[in-house]
């Protein structure tokens, strides 16, 4: 039995209509706040309101030229890249260890490594503050980097773990049997094959640090102002439209990061598909 579209019962057509309406409402709700910000960042007005008198790039200029914002950009890049590097190295090693044959309390250990993802950041931040204070790590780059590394490690463990789940353990055995030292096996066999997972882990780790605001509020001094912290200050003390420019730049960077992760995932699937063929 086939019916043309026009023959669908009324109730079914209403359901479809409702689905569309709700979908559009939800998407609008999610995207509108972002879209409102973007035109404001190109406004010449010093006030955050519509209509926009004339277009200007002055807030972008302010973002990239004022000493406060330049320090924030530099801090964000520095903290982000070093903590991403640390989180990627440690997270990859942890994922490799967790992927090995069963050892006692494997589930507990896994849960422990993933916990920064589950525990509310505010609790981690308070705990880290009281832990770091006597060690004089508060208000230092080292402290921020360590805190961000902790937050980013679970993401690396998850992405690398996902690549490892399809990794053939016989490749490692084969490499050993061919006379390769464990270090050589790691760099020549394991790392090249899990690289997509490692890179997407690194990208997500960097993104985690880039938009992290709670830890930095607790642990950072004025010297360590990152972009989110500087935005937070901007909202608190004077509402400069510069933050709309910053927000727009961050949105673009986030989209690029998402795109990169998506590309890597596609590449991974292609590799896996090639494996399955044989």
């Amino acid at each position: 039995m086939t019916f043309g579209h026009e023959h669908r019962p009324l109730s079914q057509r209403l359901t479809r209509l409702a689905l569309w309406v709700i979908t559009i409402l939800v998407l609008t709700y999610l995207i509108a706040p972002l879209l409102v910000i973007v035109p404001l960042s190109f406004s010449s007005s010093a006030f955050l309101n519509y209509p926009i008198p004339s277009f200007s790039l002055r807030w972008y200029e302010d973002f990239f030229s004022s000493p406060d914002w330049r320090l924030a950009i530099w801090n964000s890049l520095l903290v982000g890249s070093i903590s991403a590097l640390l989180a990627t190295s440690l997270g990859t090693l942890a994922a490799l260890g967790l992927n090995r044959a069963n050892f006692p309390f494997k589930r507990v250990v896994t849960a422990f490594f993933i916990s920064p993802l589950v525990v509310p950041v505010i609790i981690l931040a308070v705990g880290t503050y009281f832990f770091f204070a006597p060690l004089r790590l508060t208000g230092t780059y080292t402290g921020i980097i360590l805190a961000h590394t902790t937050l980013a490690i679970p993401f690396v463990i998850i992405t690398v773990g996902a690549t490892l789940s399809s990794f053939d353990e016989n490749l490692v055995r084969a490499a050993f049997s061919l006379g390769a030292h464990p270090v050589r096996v790691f760099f020549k066999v394991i790392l090249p094959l899990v690289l997509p997972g490692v890179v997407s882990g690194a990208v997500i780790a960097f993104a985690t640090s880039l938009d992290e605001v709670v830890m930095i509020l607790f642990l950072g001094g004025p010297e360590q102002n990152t972009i989110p912290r500087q935005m937070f200050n901007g909202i608190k003390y004077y509402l400069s439209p510069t933050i709309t420019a910053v927000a727009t730049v961050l949105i673009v960077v986030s989209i690029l990061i998402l795109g990169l992760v998506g590309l890597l995932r596609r590449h991974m699937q292609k590799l896996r598909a090639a494996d399955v063929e044989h």
Partner: protein
Amino acid sequence: MNEPVVSFVNVNKTYDGKALVVDDLNLSVHRGEFLTLLGSSGSGKTSSLMMVAGFEMPTSGDILLDGRSITRLPAYRRNIGVVFQNYALFPHMTVAENLAFPLQARKVGKAEIVKKVSRVLEIVRLTGYEARKATQLSGGQQQRVALARALIFDPALILMDEPLGALDRQLREAMQYEIKHIHDTLGISVIYVTHDQDEALAMSNRVVVLEKGKIEQVGTPKELYETPATAFVAGFVGENNCMKGRVRLAESDRCVIAMPWGDVSAITVGPAGAGRDTTWSVRPERIEFDSGSGDLDNVYDGVVKDVVYLGDQIRIYVAIGGNTFVLKVTNKSELAVLTIGQRVKVGWRAKDCRAFGLPH
């Protein structure tokens, strides 16, 4: 030829601390020998191989390579080639890079590597495939690359873990011949693991039949087939008619087994004294239709149950009393007249009939 390359000395292996996967294994592999570990899954054959390769540690006992203990030597210092069932080629490397891997690990010079790679590709008949990605090859080609990679560094020994298990029948037979040919040409020692008894018989100098971690029998393919030492080997290697009965009379090496449908005279292999239960066997091709010449020691009346036409052979199921026996007869026209339900006289010689002690 009898100088040992690898020796297992009282080797035990358990994974859970209770069940022994390998149970007090003592075995020597001779230099230049093609030795097969044959058994079903759970027989301990793969565990034994993994211990030689260094991927598993014996729970107790010692493994010697060229007389030196390697039990505590890490896998990468053993100089033993391993060929896996799933090939385990590095998917991110070309054929040449896969083959160069063991040489680079040994710091062999570039020119030497190129020379060795082309020579070993010649041996496995894949000349010209250097630049292909490993994943672009067919299953048979991948396995030949895997074999080449295990050969290229002149290992003391090559281990093969069901290397042909993933190939289809025709390719498998071609590869059996090829591996055997390479073994004969290069004179290397091979330990081969398989559950396929045809493969074991076709390729090996000696076969070790393993069951539940213990050696059932070690022997040449002919010895295993012609003179199985246990009821398990009789049933596992080649096709066999295995029956249970009770020994009525036992002489030194002969016995008479009482079956409900008559007495069977047989050779005593295991400890099967008078009055004890026994498993006895007779090969399908050793059962004959009685021509009345009197050279068969055991002759019985039977009924044809089924006739299966296999081309070169005909399999005939004959019921004697309550037991059904399989006969294998080469295809000759006069047998085509057999019909189901027909009464026949069949028999076999006592020397082709072996009585074993009860399986443990």
